[in-house]
């Protein structure tokens, strides 16, 4: 039986208090918060982080393909999923593919992953912005989630995939011109009515295909591109209200292509075995599918890095800094030379170190970061935690979000790296702090993104 054999979510650390928006933008905002990708994050880095959570929980699953969906791809022409593949240290024979540009693409990624014979990773991530003071700014959030699909002989199936109904609907309700940060929407009632019809149609077909009715559904997830339509369809689905799954709207916001996976991951992290889940995604039609949690889910219950823990654990970012991170408020750059573009040839030789964070362990046990060219065994340090031995706050160095906090990190099991700290408040860093590695975008020059690793404070409980 095919199903979900691994899952993990990623909610970036920063939260924007949306009640602070109107004072600056003259309107907009709402109660509650939205998640905010840091200045050094993009859809690809967040996809890596979510996939790392999933892989950490199912380390032995030999993932054979990667299907990456996002509406905010860092690259066009060039595949983004290969970055995910390299950062996860998946072998080069792994297939890695993008489904880029639309929210609905995530369901295509899930479908593609589920259709493979070997274990496959469906991962979706988005940075969702909108213009200052607009409704999308408050509706959206940033995040990622990863689902590993496979059969029972490839890893314990945690949620079986049941019937799946697709209804495609060609109409223009929400759209974005390539290159623009802002989505455009048709008047709200049009989408609400159309999605109401499509949602009802898809659920009707699903009940028939699955031989179940709404009262047998333990958890109903409805997400999509039209918040009001999603709420209306959920309410009219005849599933008891207490079985409607919280869509993270108040704390995180709608994370675009990532959102169906993120809400599902959050649910799987706390759902009981033997439960029936219906996932309905309203995006240019409707995708509806049934999942049934298995007994194995109880023993796979994660103790750390849950979506709920990440949602609860955020730290504030001011509205001004949020606007500058997204490029909406251009701030004066540091008066230092901007980083040079990364050499594609050098980076290509350096994939194990640059993407896989592999150092070398010498025969005497010492670990070298970066690896020595002629000695020792390569060993990834990405999952090793470390301790801040000393640090400094650098107000001179080029960073889009000064000051740079730079720490000397000693890793558990050996090895030292002087490395930038991220998701850290400069005033709170202390010698002895515990840190973990996170995959980030250091800079971009000539359109080439410089991906590498930084350290961040361990917040999900240490070890």
């Amino acid at each position, binding site marked *: 039986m095919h199903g979900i054999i691994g899952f993990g979510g990623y909610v970036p650390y920063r939260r924007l208090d949306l009640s602070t928006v109107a004072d600056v933008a003259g309107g907009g905002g709402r109660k509650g918060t939205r998640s905010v990708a840091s200045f050094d994050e993009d859809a690809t880095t967040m996809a890596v982080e979510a996939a790392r959570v999933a892989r950490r929980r199912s380390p032995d699953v030999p993932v054979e393909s990667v299907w990456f969906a996002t509406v905010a791809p860092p690259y066009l022409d060039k595949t983004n999923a290969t970055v995910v593949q390299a950062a996860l240290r998946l072998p080069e024979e792994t297939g890695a593919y993008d489904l880029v540009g639309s929210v609905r693409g995530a369901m295509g990624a899930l479908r593609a992953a589920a259709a493979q014979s070997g274990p496959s990773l469906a991962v979706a991530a988005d940075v969702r912005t909108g213009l200052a003071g607009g409704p999308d700014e408050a509706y959206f959030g940033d995040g990622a989630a990863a689902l590993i699909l496979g059969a029972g002989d490839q890893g314990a199936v945690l949620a079986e995939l049941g019937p799946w109904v697709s209804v495609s609907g060609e109409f223009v309700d929400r759209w974005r011109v390539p290159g623009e940060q802002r989505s455009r929407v048709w008047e709200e009632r049009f989408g609400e009515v159309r999605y109401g019809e499509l949602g009802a149609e898809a659920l009707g077909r699903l009940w028939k295909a699955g031989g179940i009715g709404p009262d047998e559904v333990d958890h109903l997830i409805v997400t999509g591109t039209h918040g009001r339509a999603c709420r209306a369809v959920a309410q009219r689905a005849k599933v008891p209200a207490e079985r409607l799954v919280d869509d993270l709207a108040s704390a995180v916001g709608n994370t675009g292509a990532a959102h169906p996976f993120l809400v599902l991951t959050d649910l799987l992290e706390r759902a009981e075995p033997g439960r029936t889940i219906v996932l309905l995604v309203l995006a240019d039609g409707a995708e509806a599918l049934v999942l049934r949690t298995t007994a194995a889910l109880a023993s796979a219950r994660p103790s750390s890095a849950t979506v709920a823990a990440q949602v609860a654990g955020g730290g504030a970012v001011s509205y001004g800094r949020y606007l500058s991170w997204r490029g909406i408020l251009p701030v004066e750059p540091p*008066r*230092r*030379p901007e*980083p*040079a573009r*990364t*050499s594609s*040839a*050098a*980076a290509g*030789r*350096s994939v194990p*170190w*640059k993407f896989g964070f592999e150092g070398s362990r010498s025969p005497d046990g*010492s670990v*070298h*970061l*970066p690896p020595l060219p002629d000695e020792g065994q390569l060993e990834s340090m990405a999952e090793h935690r470390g301790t801040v*031995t*000393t*640090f*400094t*706050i*650098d*107000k*001179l*160095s*080029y*960073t889009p979000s000064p000051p*740079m906090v*730079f720490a*000397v990190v*000693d890793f558990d099991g*050996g*090895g*030292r*790296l*002087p490395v*930038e700290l991220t998701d850290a408040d400069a005033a709170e860093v202390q*010698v002895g702090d515990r840190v973990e590695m996170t995959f980030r975008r*250091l*800079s971009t020059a000539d359109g080439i993104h*410089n*991906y*590498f690793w930084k350290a961040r404070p361990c917040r999900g409980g240490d070890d």
Partner: protein
Amino acid sequence: MGSHGITDKVAIVGMACTKFGEHWNLGTDELLLQAVEGAFASAGVGRADVDAYWLGTAQSGMSGLLLSRPLRVRDKPVTRVENFCASGSEALRQAAYAVSSGAYDVAMAVGVEKMKDSGFQGANAFPIPSDGTNRTVTAAAMYSMIVPAYAKRYGVEVDDVKQALARVASKNHANGARNERAQFRKEMSVEQLLGMPRIAGELSVFDCAGVADGAAAAVVVRAEDAHEYTQTPLYVKALSFVVGDGSGVSDPDYDFTTFPEVVLSAQDAYRQAGLTDPRTQLAMAEVHDCFTPTELVLMEDLGFCARGTAWKEELAGSFELDGDLPVNPDGGLKSFGHPVGASGLRMMFEAWLQLRGEAPEERRISTYGKRNLALTHNLGGYPGEMVSFVSILGTEGPRD
């Protein structure tokens, strides 16, 4: 096998150093010509008398053409050398070896750097194509890590270390105020220095070397020929250069309170020169005070005082002009700024002036007339990955 040195085989017979500063109206050509022609005049030679040139510059130009072109030398070897911030010292080292080998009779070492043409404050490395994983932190931030590490290792309050660092800066500014070639000629009190805003760790702008343009040059000959050029040559007693393997930045045992490359180059130099107690045998030292904590650590690494005591020695004024071992009597990188390729030769120029009694009285070292050896120390890189040069120069030659 071994590092034998060339003690008393080579002498400096002429030196010159430009004023260091923001030379908006002088380019690399003009700075080079000032230094080279000054050194010619100092040694009483002309360009036809110099058989070979070594030019140290980190990134103001490439190849010997950087010097041969403005100097209009068309029939001599001119070699550009680069070894980070010790490039000027490296040029002198190569020139000294060349004459001691007998390959040339007269060689010149020149150092130059045009720092102020970049359009950015501070020193900025020329970008070499890379995989993008290099550290992005500034040198100031790297050296700032010394402060808490030193305080922790020796159980000293950070505020006491900061007092000592302010004394380093105020000492060097006081010396620089008495030096017409210095970039900054204003005295700074400890109170003023401690009140400056921090830019990296505990360091303020005034804990950092200035950024200046400048050039310096030296004419070297075999020791036995020295008196043909001057009655007061400076003899090369030791030249040591040690380059670490960069492992300190990734070695969990490295603690940011010492520079092993400096310790090794100092030991090598003392052995070459036969020094057993540098604190009492040296008349002065010019050291690489790129940041104030660097000078603090150097006092210990160069063996001028015991581990964990440099901060007290600084507070006691041991290394001031009237202390028992004056350090950076010319004002150091602190008040001269740091035109990378020139600094190593600028340090030797101060030894040239002080040991030969040519330094003006208001900054004459306390040891003048009592001791006749000077040390110059020039480093490049960062704590944990460094190149280190130590020279010992003296007025007493093999025939004396």
